[in-house]
């Protein structure tokens, strides 16, 4: 039966994450973006929320709550509202953790999951995006070739969050090039493995507080047991789709924040004797921003709901992610436009959101629900 009401647990998650975002993330956003560093307090307190450890089963030392994409996107919207860099840093290990949880073998679950159930934040990286203008996850250039009991990985990756801070990295590479999504597999690679070359921290237009790195793989050999799902392999498109939902939810949260900021400015800023929001040129922009933020959230919810129900959701997740990327850019661009000159000054958060927003069209596989 159709309903748009959050259940009690989702409401609790939403409220908890929302206050965390308002109290700790948002106030630190600007300084963090300028310094390129995320306050330790945010990471520690954010980890305490248990968003990741919560969904790890008790047998692997987690709290054993059911993994729900829907609850995940609700939490991520709030984190995105707080700050995108911090949200992505906090949730970066989710790519590895949830992939293993969803598609790992029993042995892989036992080996990797307990490390993420402790009281202290534990980093993990994922390498998916490649540094080519026409990069597509279905046509990866990185390859992993089987050689006896090993896989040999070769290729270039970029936008790998926390590569240096992590012990393990989930690397996606084509095992069957030319086979599209079904020809891609994931490999859990210890960061110190020979053939893994982590470059200098990347300098990006936005998400400046998130440490991302380029990583080159040169004849990097990993044993067969490192392949996600081992003999079975993994359903890459499913993992990618869970990540698309997460990114789309972050886009909704950040855009909602930009909308609220623009709304407040439009009611307070006086020009020609009236608040600028009393002119249709501004008011209509705000109305459209509000409509699109809500519309995107509903697209994300529906796709996440399908995922939880065990239905196909890959198409819906792709539509939601692309829609969210466009929406975020539209909303944040208008945020800057509504502020006028003030929106171009770095004192104002909209210029930060504007830079971050452009990233959604590029981001893939950095966070997961």
């Amino acid at each position, binding site marked *: 039966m159709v309903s748009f009401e959050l259940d009690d647990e989702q409401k609790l998650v939403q409220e908890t994450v929302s206050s965390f975002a308002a109290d700790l993330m948002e106030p630190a956003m600007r300084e963090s973006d300028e310094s390129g560093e995320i306050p330790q307090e945010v990471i520690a307190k954010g980890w305490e929320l248990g968003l990741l450890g919560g969904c790890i089963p008790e047998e692997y030392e987690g709290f054993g709550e059911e993994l729900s994409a829907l609850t995940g996107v609700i939490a991520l919207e709030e984190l995105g509202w707080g700050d995108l860099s911090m949200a992505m840093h906090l949730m970066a290990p989710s790519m590895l953790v949830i992939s293993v949880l969803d598609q790992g073998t029993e042995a892989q679950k036992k080996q990797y999951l307990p490390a993420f159930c402790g009281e202290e934040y534990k980093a993990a990286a994922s390498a998916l995006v490649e540094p080519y203008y026409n990069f597509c996850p279905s046509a990866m250039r990185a390859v992993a070739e089987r050689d006896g009991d090993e896989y040999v990985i070769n290729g270039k990756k970029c936008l790998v969050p926390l590569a240096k801070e992590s012990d393990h990295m989930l690397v996606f590479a084509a095992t069957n090039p030319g086979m599209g999504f079904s020809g891609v597999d994931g490999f859990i690679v210890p960061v110190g493995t020979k053939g893994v070359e982590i470059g200098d921290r990347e300098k990006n237009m936005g998400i400046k507080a998130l440490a991302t790195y380029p990583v080159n793989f040169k004849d990097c050999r990993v044993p067969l047991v490192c392949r996600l799902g081992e003999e079975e392999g993994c359903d890459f498109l499913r993992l990618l789709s869970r990540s698309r939902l997460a990114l789309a939810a972050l886009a909704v949260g950040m855009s909602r924040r930009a909308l609220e900021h623009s709304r407040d400015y439009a009611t307070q800023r006086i020009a020609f004797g009236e608040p600028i929001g009393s002119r249709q040129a501004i008011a209509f922009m705000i*109305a459209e921003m509000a409509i699109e933020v809500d519309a995107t959230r*509903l697209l994300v919810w529906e796709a996440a709901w399908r995922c939880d129900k065990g239905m196909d959701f890959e198409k819906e997740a792709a539509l939601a992610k692309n829609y969210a990327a466009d929406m975020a850019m539209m909303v944040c661009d208008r945020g800057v436009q509504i502020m006028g000159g003030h929106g171009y000054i770095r004192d104002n958060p909209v210029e930060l959101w504007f830079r971050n927003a452009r990233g959604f069209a590029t981001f893939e596989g950095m966070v997961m629900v």
Partner: protein
Amino acid sequence: MTIDFELSPRIKATKNMIHMFAESAIRPIARYYDENEHEKPWDLLNMVQKFMGGGMAGAFGAGGEEKKAEGEEAKEKKPRETNLAGAVTIEEIFWGDAGIALSFPGPGLGGAAVQASGTPEQKEKFLARFRGDKPVWGAMAITEPEAGSDTANIKTTAVLDGDEWVLNGEKIFVTSGKSALEDSEGFVVVWATVDRSAGRAGIKPFIVEHGTPGMQITKIEDKLGIRCSDTVSISFMDCRIPKENILGSPEVVDKTKTEGFKKVMATFDATRPLVAAMAIGVGRAALDFIKETLKEEGVELRYGINPHRMTSLERDIMQMEADLKAARLLTWRAVWMLDNGLRNDLQASMAKAKAGLAVTRITQKAVELMGPLGYSREYLLEKWMRDSKINDIFEGTGQIQLLVTARRILGFTREQLK
């Protein structure tokens, strides 16, 4: 309750039934009644009334009924799905054909106004007729040559003379006006002012029965689309109606109090999402046409690949799909709120604004993408493009919806944001 997008078995069954009906009974005659404007598919209309009478009328008039029941039902916490069922049903019928669907018998907006603010006696007297064997229509007359969405500027007057109201003025763009007043024993709800100096507070709705002397249809419009549905002008010259045919109180309270006006305006909170659902039905028809055509041609749509690697056609179609889905979800949210007794004026306007614009874009793009198949009158695509345009206009244009939305988001009154 928790977030859920699954239609209940009851709604699903209705949806399937209506879809089959739309496909087998409406689609095949859609072109004929577009080319032969002002003719009506009487066989179909009689059948609709006979087999679906109350049901169909109910779907369109549901809003008013819901509004009224809200207060009483809220205590019971019983989940209601009347408006959601209405939205889903309407999408299917309009997938069949918008013009024909709009010409279906039923109480329409006029009936919704009676439901929303009529007395029990008025409801019995005016609404019983829709449950009979013969098709009957209700209509609403608001727009005037100089007052469309600017309802406060209504110039049609109503003056009390003894036991009768005397109406004078001219109304335009009355949907199903001819059906209500000439083709059946229906009525029209006319908005007129009892005190021009009182502005909005002086505007009241009056029920005028078919055949009332002094009321005359003066023009039947030729239109861009939805040609099967009649749109007329009506003039009132010393048109006398019984005193009890006013909806709500005849008192003009002070100018700042516009409760009666607001109550009838609140009818739109129920009807706007339904108009959005109409749009979505037409948009889906266009998308289905494209997908079938591409399937026949062996063209595969690749979801999930990098948009830069898609063909322009794939990008366009995915944009259209996401837009349509977004509009539908906003619409479902608006009706779900109504079903749950939540104030939905903001969400109703958001849904209508999104759907009206999305569907005009979708159908226009569809015609472009399909080239000669889109432009040819041999197929229905060009018709859907013409039909859908009305969705961004009637029941408040897209711009009016943006105004309503912006006022609510910014917390501005209508004086602060014009």
